């Protein structure tokens, strides 16, 4: 890889051991993907929940944090993805002191490096939305696909250690979705029905994701006559990235790099569009259904809820009571939680017997252990991304609209 003077200095260790480690890691990945050089980034979004980090990851962070301040500080604004513990809720969820201690150690290390603990996967809605053409190092599949596709910014999936490395060097290896020629469409889908709910949008993302299964595929979606909302695109993108490891999509007439079909595909001949029908969406729900079963836990999370989603949930539970045998959990960002406290949404949800968790996301909360501790197996959610992930943690997931999830939580069984 071609290196600038400062990159050579980092590699030689002249700017400290953390930056030497960081650029060496980035060069290993850059060479793997045939990157010719680096690109400077303006923001880093860092995924580092303690379930993923484990003891070894936290020790690694502490070693970096023990270096001198000049050598350990991040070089660009760096914010965090959801954490594994909400210190206000972890005892109610039967998370352990060991989990909480690990979390405290990780937070202390990040703070020493100058990382801002935003603890959110919806930073593009709540912290600082990137702009078209801005190069980033984003480390959550949902945030990456949203900023690439909806905002026209440029990032690859930069997983935890890679995002940390980008924060320390201020750059990322220049390959994949940093390059204009890689951002053109490769596959086409035609929506034949308008999704009616957030879970419908997630289902459509899941259907397309299941058909692609490659990071290097860029689906182009046609047939959207009315612009979706930010939350609809959030659920669509999160599911698409989760089911298909996809990092970029175009929606003709909606997203900035696809004003029309021709420009979505660039010089490529557009392929024939595969239809997505109402029957496809029903079949997708059918693969995550179990009417009549006792319901253990209802989760609204993955991605964290926006203020608008929290308002919807508060309205649905208001004046009702969650069944004593069912837990209802909603996860949002610290900023949105504060707004919900102020606007009475938290009181409405918790008054009905639900739990509002802040700065966490369900599958990043040691989901296997809390499932076992609480006796949770049958889980219901309106998040297609969550039902995709959570089966591997020993849960039996059901996908449904937010309304049906709430009705089921009140009934204590899957309706």
């Amino acid at each position, binding site marked *: 890889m071609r290196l600038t003077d400062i990159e050579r200095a980092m590699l030689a260790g002249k700017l400290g051991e953390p930056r030497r480690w960081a650029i060496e890691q980035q060069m290993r990945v850059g060479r*793997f993907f045939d990157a010719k050089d680096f690109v400077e980034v303006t923001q880093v979004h860092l995924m580092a929940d303690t379930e*993923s980090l484990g003891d070894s990851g936290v020790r690694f962070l502490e070693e970096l944090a023990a270096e001198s301040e000049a050598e350990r500080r991040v070089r660009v604004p760096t914010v965090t993805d959801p954490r594994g513990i909400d210190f206000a809720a972890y005892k109610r969820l039967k998370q352990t002191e060991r989990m909480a201690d690990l979390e405290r150690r990780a937070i202390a290390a990040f703070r020493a490096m100058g990382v801002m603990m935003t603890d959110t996967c919806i930073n593009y809605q709540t912290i600082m939305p990137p702009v078209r053409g801005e190069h980033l190092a984003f480390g959550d599949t949902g945030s990456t696909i949203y900023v690439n596709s909806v905002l026209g910014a440029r990032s690859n999936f930069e997983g*935890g250690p890679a995002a940390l490395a980008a924060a320390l060097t201020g750059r990322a290896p220049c390959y994949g979705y940093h390059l204009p020629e890689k951002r053109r469409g490769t596959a086409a889908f035609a929506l034949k029905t308008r999704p009616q709910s957030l879970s419908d949008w997630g289902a459509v993302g899941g259907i397309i994701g299941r058909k692609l299964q*490659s*990071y290097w595929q860029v689906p182009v979606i046609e047939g959207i006559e009315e612009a979706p909302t930010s939350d609809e695109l959030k659920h669509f993108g999160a599911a698409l990235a989760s089911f298909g490891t996809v990092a970029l999509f175009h929606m003709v007439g909606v997203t900035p790099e696809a004003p029309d079909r021709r420009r979505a595909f660039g010089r490529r001949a557009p392929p024939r569009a595969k239809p997505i029908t109402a029957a496809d969406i029903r079949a997708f729900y059918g693969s995550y259904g179990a009417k009549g079963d006792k319901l253990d836990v209802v989760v609204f999370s993955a991605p964290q809820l926006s203020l608008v989603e929290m308002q919807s949930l508060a309205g649905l539970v208001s004046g009702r009571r969650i069944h004593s045998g069912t837990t209802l959990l909603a996860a949002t960002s610290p900023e949105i939680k504060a707004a919900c406290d102020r606007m009475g949404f938290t009181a409405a949800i918790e008054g009905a017997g639900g739990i509002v968790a802040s700065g966490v996301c369900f599958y990043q909360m040691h989901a296997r252990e809390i499932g076992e501790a609480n006796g949770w197996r049958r889980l219901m959610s309106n998040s297609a991304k969550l039902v995709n992930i959570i089966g591997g943690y020993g849960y039996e997931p059901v996908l449904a609209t937010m309304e049906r999830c709430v009705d089921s939580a009140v009934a204590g069984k899957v309706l």
Partner: protein
Amino acid sequence: MKPRILHAHPGIGPKVTGVALVAADYFSARYDLDRIKGVFSRPAHKLYGQPYVGRVLVLLGAKGGVATSWMLREMSERGLAPLALLLNTANPIMAQGAAFANLAFLDRFKGDVTAAIRTGETVTVDPVAGTVTLEG
């Protein structure tokens, strides 16, 4: 029998020799594994219930999720990692995780690697050369 050599793009990590565990399915450490018991735990996965520790995992590609980038190293330090990972098509997360964990990792084979190797075969993975040698 003469060893067979499969060619891929140069990869990441050390040269290793081990026994293959193969499936025409995808991979994510978070979605698919019980990282405490060391088995595939996702019921829909073709390797469901199979132990993966110390095996050369041969799969189609990566699935969604970024957690694998941290998890491979953590699994390695607890002695619960695969020996190597071979995919037809990687995503950045797998490469970043392999680099962080120093795990042998290759992708971009000439042909479908899950069809070229059978479970139980002994293979030598050489990331610098970008080759996998199947012992005869």
